[in-house]
C-alpha cells in the first residue's frame, strides 16, 4: 500500500504524462479510425445502412460490408499493424522519460523528460529486441498445461479435461505475459537508473530482480492488471446496449469511452510509479565517487544486495 500511496503522489505531480500517453493512444487509434470513417461514409454514408449504425451494429450489414469490400480488409490489416507499432514505439519512447521522472521523484520537467526519453529510446529499442526470446518463453508457460494433459491423460483426453485445460492455459498465458511485462519494466528501470548501455546486462538484471522478488513484484503488478479488467467490465456494464440515436447520446458515449481510456492510461502510469518506488527501495543508489577514479565501478549493483 505504501508503494501505491507513493505512486499516486508521483502521478499527481506529473499529470502532464497522463495527457501525453492519452494523446499517443488517441493518435494511434485515429490512424485506423479516420480511414475507416472515410470508407464507411463512401459505402454507406448516404443509406440507411449508415444510419443504422447510430443504434448499434447490425451483424448482417457488417458481414455484408466485409464480404463486399474484401480489398479493404488487407489494407486495414496493414493500417492496424502500423498503428499498433506506432503506439508500441511511442510507449517505449515515453517510458524513458517516465521512469527517469519517477526515479528522481520530480515534478514534470519537459526538458528532463524529453532528454531521458530521447537518450534511452535507442537502448530501449535494443532491449525490446533482445527481450523477444524472453517473451516467447514466458508466453509458452501456458503450454505446460498442454504437456501436463498429454502426460497424464494421453493423446485423446475427454473434452471435460480439454475444457478446463483451456481456461487454465489462458490463465497461464496471462501470467506469462505479466511476467514478461514486469521483466521488461524492471530492465528498463535498471537501464536508466544505472545509465546502463549494455542492454543484455539490463535484461539480465531485470530477470534476476523479478525472480528474486517474484511475489512482491507480481503482487504489485497484479492489482493493476486486475483493475484494468474490472474497469473493462464496469465500462461494458454501463454502456452495454447503450443506444446513441441522438447527438446528445453520442456525446455521452464519447465521454464514457474516453474516460475509460484515460483511466487505463492512469493505471499504466500508476504501475510505472509503483515499480520505480519498489525498485528504489530494493536497489541502493550507486555511491558517488569523489576524487580520481581508478575506473572501477561495480557494473552490477544487484550483486551487492
Amino acid at each position, binding site marked *: 500500500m505504501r508503494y501505491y500511496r507513493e505512486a499516486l503522489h508521483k502521478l499527481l505531480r506529473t499529470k502532464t504524462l497522463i495527457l501525453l500517453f492519452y494523446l499517443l493512444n488517441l493518435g494511434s487509434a485515429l490512424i485506423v479510425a479516420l480511414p475507416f470513417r472515410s470508407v*464507411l461514409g463512401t459505402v454507406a454514408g448516404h443509406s440507411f445502412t449508415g444510419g443504422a449504425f447510430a443504434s448499434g451494429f447490425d451483424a448482417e450489414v457488417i458481414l455484408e460490408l466485409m464480404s463486399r469490400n474484401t480489398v479493404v480488409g488487407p489494407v486495414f490489416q496493414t493500417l492496424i499493424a502500423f498503428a499498433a507499432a506506432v503506439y508500441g514505439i511511442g510507449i517505449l519512447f515515453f517510458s524513458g522519460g517516465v521512469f527517469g521522472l519517477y526515479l528522481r521523484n520530480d515534478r514534470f520537467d519537459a526538458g528532463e523528460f524529453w532528454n531521458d526519453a530521447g537518450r534511452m529510446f535507442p537502448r530501449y529499442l535494443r532491449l525490446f529486441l533482445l527481450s523477444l526470446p524472453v517473451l516467447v518463453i514466458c508466453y509458452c508457460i501456458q503450454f505446460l498445461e498442454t504437456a501436463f494433459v498429454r502426460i497424464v491423460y494421453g493423446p485423446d483426453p475427454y473434452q471435460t479435461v480439454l475444457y478446463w485445460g483451456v481456461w487454465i492455459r489462458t490463465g497461464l498465458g496471462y501470467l506469462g505475459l505479466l511476467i514478461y511485462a514486469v521483466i521488461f519494466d524492471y530492465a528498463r528501470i535498471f537501464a536508466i537508473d544505472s545509465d546502463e548501455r549494455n542492454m543484455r546486462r539490463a535484461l539480465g538484471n531485470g530477470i534476476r530482480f523479478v525472480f528474486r522478488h517474484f511475489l512482491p513484484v507480481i503482487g504489485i503488478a497484479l492489482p493493476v492488471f486486475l483493475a484494468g479488467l474490472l474497469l473493462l467490465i464496469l465500462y461494458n456494464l454501463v454502456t452495454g446496449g447503450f443506444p446513441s440515436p441522438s447527438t446528445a447520446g453520442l456525446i455521452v458515449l464519447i465521454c464514457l469511452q474516453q474516460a475509460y481510456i484515460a483511466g487505463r492510461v492512469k493505471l499504466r502510469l500508476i504501475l510505472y510509479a509503483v515499480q520505480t518506488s519498489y525498485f528504489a527501495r530494493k536497489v541502493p543508489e550507486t555511491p558517488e565517487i569523489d576524487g580520481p577514479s581508478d575506473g572501477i565501478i561495480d557494473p552490477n549493483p544487484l550483486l551487492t544486495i
Partner: protein
Amino acid sequence: MSFRRSRILPVICTALLLPVTAASGQNTIFPSPLSPRIANYDIDARYDPARFTLEGREKLRWRNEGTDTVRSIEMHLYLNAFRNNRSTFMMESEDLPDQSPADSARWGFCQIRSLLTENGEELTGRIRYIHPDDDNTDDRTVIEIPLPSPVLPGDTLVLSSVFTSKFPRPPVARSGGKAEYLFAGQWFPKIGVFENGSWNCHQYHAQSEFFADFGVYNVNITLPQNEIVGATGLETGSEQNSDGTTTHRFHAEDVHDFAWTASPEYVEFRGRAEQVDIRVLMQPDHREQGPRYLAAAATALKYFHDWYGDYPFPNLTVVDPRRGARESAGMEYPTLFTAWTTHGIPAGCRIPEMIIIHEFGHNYWYHLLASNEFEESWMDEGINTFTETQIMREAYGQTGNLLDLLGFTVDDLTLNRVEYLGAASCDPTLRFAWKYYSGASYGVNSYAKPAVLLTTLQNYLGTETMRRIMRAYVNRWKFRHPTTKDFIAVANEVSGRNLNWFFDQAIYSNAVLDYSVDKVTTREISPGRGFGFTDRLTGNGPAADSAPSVPDTGRLYASEVDVRRLGTFIFPVTVEAKFEDGSRVREQWDGKDTWTRFRYTRRARLVSATVDPDRLIPLDINLTNNSRTVDYQTLGVTTATLRVLFWFQSLFDQPEIFNMLNVVAGLF
C-alpha cells in the same frame, strides 16, 4: 485379404444358400406398406472393433417396378471411396488431410467376396467395376453385374452376398471409427435405382450424397457385449452369445438406408414428443447436454408435425459423435442422425440445436421425399436448410436465434445469406453435385442459396401459402422420388399462380438479384411564375385588365427517385419514399426494366428512398444499396467510427486480450 478359394468357396456358397437369419420372425411396424418397398435387405453383420472390420452376409430382394426388362444390375460399394487415394472421391477432395500410405488404419473398403443368385448361380466372377460419371478406372464405388437371367417387369431378383467392410479411422466423410466408437454409414453393398429404363447409380463423389429405393431392412449386428448400439428402425431383440458377443436385431420398414453406431461409452437419454420415442446417445463428456439434445429434437418434431405433416415412424435416434470423429457428425439417415456439440458450449450458442433441427429435417426432405441427392442436392439440403431457418426463428427468436452471447447476436438465416453472398453467381442452383465450380459453390447452391430463395418466395406468397405448398409436397410425394419439376408443379398448383418465372431464374440459372436506389434528388420549385391558365391573353400579351395569375401554391418540392435493377434476376419490388413531414409513399415496380423513376411534387422535401423497405427479399445480393438518403448519415457514421476508435484504443493498450482467443479456439 486372401483366402484359399478351393476350400473356402464351397463353404461360403453353402452358407449363402442358408436363409439369412435376419429375415425370420421380424415384427411389423406398419400394417400396410407406406412405400413401394423395392429394395429389401436382410443382413447379418459381425463387427470386430479391434480391427474396425465387419464381415457381412446380405440377402437382397429387388423388385423390378418398371416396364423394362433388366439384364444387369448396378450396385454401390460406397466405402471403396476410401480404399486409396486414386478413387474419384479422393481425387476430387480439396481439403482432406494427407493420408499416410503406411497407415492402413486410415483407409477403408467394401469388398464382395461372393455373390450368388437364388438358384446358387455364381456371379462373383461377373462383377465389373464401372465409372459412369468420369473416366477414372481406379474408382471402385460402383459395380455392374450382368445377370444370367433377365428380370422381367414385376419379377423379384434375389441375390446373396458375402462381403467385408473396413471402416477408416478416424471417420472420413461420415463413416468410420475412432478408439471405442464406430459410425457405420453406407457400409453394405447397395443396389442403385432403376428408373426410366436405366440404372441411376453414381460414383461416390467428394460433393455428393446418396440415392436409393425404399424397402424393408432386417439387420442383425453381432459385436462385443459391452457395446451400446443405435441403428435405423427398431431393435426387435437381442441375444447374448457364448463367445462374449451380443447379436442385436433391427427391423426397419419403408426406409432407403440403414446406418448404425456402437460404443461402450454412450450415455443414454430417452424422451417422447409428438408420439415418437426419442433416444439420445451422448458421449460421456457431453452428458450434461443430453436434456438439451432431447429438447431440440422435441422442438424439431413439434414444428415439423405442425407445419409439414406427421413424422410417420415410431422412433428417432440422435447420436452424439465422439471427440476426434467430427467427420461423422451432422449426418442424416432414416430415423437416426448424428449431431455435434462440444463440452462447455454455452446456452446462447445454439449450434447443437441448429444441427439437430437440420438433421431431423432430413427425415422429411431426404427420407420421406427421397430425391436424388447426386443430381438435385438442393431439394434435400436446400429445402431442409430453409425449414431449419424457419424453425430456428420461430423457436428461438427472430434475431439471435443461432448466437446470442455477450450482446452479440447472429440469426441463422442471416448467416446463410452471408454464405450465399460468397458464391452467388458461380453456378445455377440445380446441377449435378460433383459438377459445381468448387466445394464452396456446392455448399452455397445446395444449402444456403435455396434457403434464401425459398424465404424470398415465402415472403412473396405469404407464410401460410408457403406452408400449404410444403405440406402438399410432403403429402403428394412422400415415399417417392420427387424431382425439381415436381416441386415446382406443386408450388404452382397450391399457390394458384404460375411461378415458373421465379424458379427459372432461381433454380435453373445463376441470375443474381440486386435492386438499388441509385439517386434521390429534391429541389424547391420556384414560386408561381408565368401566365395563369385563366388569364386572358392577346397577341400583345395579357389584356390590360388582367394580371398574371399563376396561383401561389406556397413552397413546393420536386423530388425524384431513381431505382435500378443491377442484377439479371427480375423480381417485383416495393419502393418507399419518405418525406420530411413524415409522410411515406409506397410504389410497386415489376422490376422488369433496367431502371425506373418516380417523381413527386409535394410540400415536403424528400428525405430518403428504400427498395424493399420491409426486407422481404433476402435474395437481394446487396443490402447497402437498397436505400439512399438525401442527407449524409453523419450520426450513424460518426457513432460507428467512435466505436471502432474506442476498440482500437482499448486493444492497443491491452493487447493481452487476444489471449482470450485461446478459449474460443479451445472450445471449438
